């Protein structure tokens, strides 16, 4: 019994809050879950031109600028006789695929799935998922692809990145980048660098 008393006293002396109401914040009200939506980038349905904006980024032109309607001949603007010139900025490094593997030949504003069903450019992720199953599954479960917003959908919405925001559809492997500057850390770096 003395041991029990001592233990109880010890527990009572645990570092709890003097004001126990401060231990937790208010519970989150059970609100209807907010959406987790996919951001659709403007680069979808556009092709880079050799021209650059003031930041050095290529200026895109919508596919529909030239391919105005259904049918291969529905080109209203541009160099009809020389499609390579218009698509010259595209470097196709996507597993040996040809243009028509994804782009709908009868309407260049659209894509098509493996079974031939036509889809809008904005729905491109359906097409990606047909070959990249594990990645699509991980994406659906929230374990692949960047996002911003709220982890707690009761409190706010989340915006998921679209496949093409990280993987350029024509050359999906992300290029090398220069890393952000390192910390000047006196503990880890060799003495010669800090002294």
């Amino acid at each position, binding site marked *: 019994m003395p041991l029990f008393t001592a233990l109880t006293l010890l527990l009572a002396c645990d*570092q*709890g*809050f*003097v*004001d126990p*109401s*401060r*231990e*937790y*914040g208010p*519970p*989150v009200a059970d609100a209807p879950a907010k959406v987790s939506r996919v951001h659709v980038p403007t680069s979808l349905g556009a092709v880079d031109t050799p021209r650059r904006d003031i930041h050095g980024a290529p200026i895109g032109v919508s596919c529909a600028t030239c391919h105005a309607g259904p049918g291969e001949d529905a080109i209203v603007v541009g160099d009809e006789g020389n499609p390579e010139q218009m698509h010259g900025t595209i470097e196709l490094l996507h597993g040996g695929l040809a243009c028509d593997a994804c782009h709908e030949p009868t309407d260049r504003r659209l894509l098509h799935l493996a079974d031939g069903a036509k889809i809008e450019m904005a729905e491109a992720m359906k097409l990606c998922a047909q070959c990249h199953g*594990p990645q699509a599954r*991980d994406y659906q*479960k*929230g*374990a*692949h*692809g*960047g*996002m*911003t*917003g*709220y*982890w*707690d959908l*009761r*409190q*706010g919405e*989340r915006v998921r*990145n679209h496949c093409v925001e*990280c993987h350029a559809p024509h050359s999906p492997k*992300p290029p*090398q*980048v*220069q*890393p*952000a*500057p*390192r*910390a*000047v*850390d*006196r*503990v*880890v*770096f060799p003495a010669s*660098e800090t002294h």
Partner: protein
Amino acid sequence: MEDTSRRTTLKALGATLGAAAFARAMAPLAAWPEDLSIDELLQRHYKELSRDDMVRVLRRLEQETLDQYGAVVTIDDVRPIPEVQFGYALNLSVCVGCRKCAEACHVENNHDRATNQSYIRVLEIKNGSVDLAMGTVDYDHAVPKKGRSYMPVQCHQCDNAPCVSVCPIEATWKEPDGIVVVDYNWCIGCRYCEAACPYHARRFNWHKPEIPAEEINPDQAYLSNRVRPQGVMEKCTFCLHRTRKGRLPACLEACPTGARVFGNMLDPNSEIRWVLENKRTFVLKEDLGTRPRFFYFFDK
């Protein structure tokens, strides 16, 4: 004339030494730091503050930030959400070592600009091993480099945290949602916790942080990203000023490859639970028994 006795001499010597020692011990009082107010000196431990006390402390700290940095900030005492246990996972298959997470941490958490400090350290290691001792953090070439992989390391919010048990004054503790925090006003800067952490996740403020007023993140919390004083420890708090309000951590939002997964481990439908249940996750230095809440995994 009577000779001075041996006893008297020793007494005099002892008294002199005692007086000198006392003067020396009191010397710090003469060098009272200009920025230390009586209120701050007498401030109680975080857990001993009532709600009213806390509000007074927060307003004082906001005023101090305005006086010392010229920045108008809001400091909150953001408390844990009931029935939430935070967990974090990182996909090593897709991390490219770009340090965007470290950069976002630097900005979000009001780190010292001169040292470019951050709670995240990205290790570059040779493929085929997780030999941390051979990893480097000072790489400056384009990434990802062929034959190298990258491993960001930050606080693992251990359930059996060595940094908490070594603190001689309970200035650091584990919160109910799993985050290990520091009361920067209680910390005495002994750095025991820094030595105890096997992940090298804690940082010491050797200098008073220097941040231009316009770069200070005004959305602050007492236990996380308020500007820390000189001479205290600091650490990653999973951005509790954001995550306890339902938002994602800054490092996750900044990650361009989507390598990071964050959420409530008690929610069976959460992303973090799916990763823990379906990916082959591992923790760093499992053999030490620290029981981290930060998990690594590979896609294959």
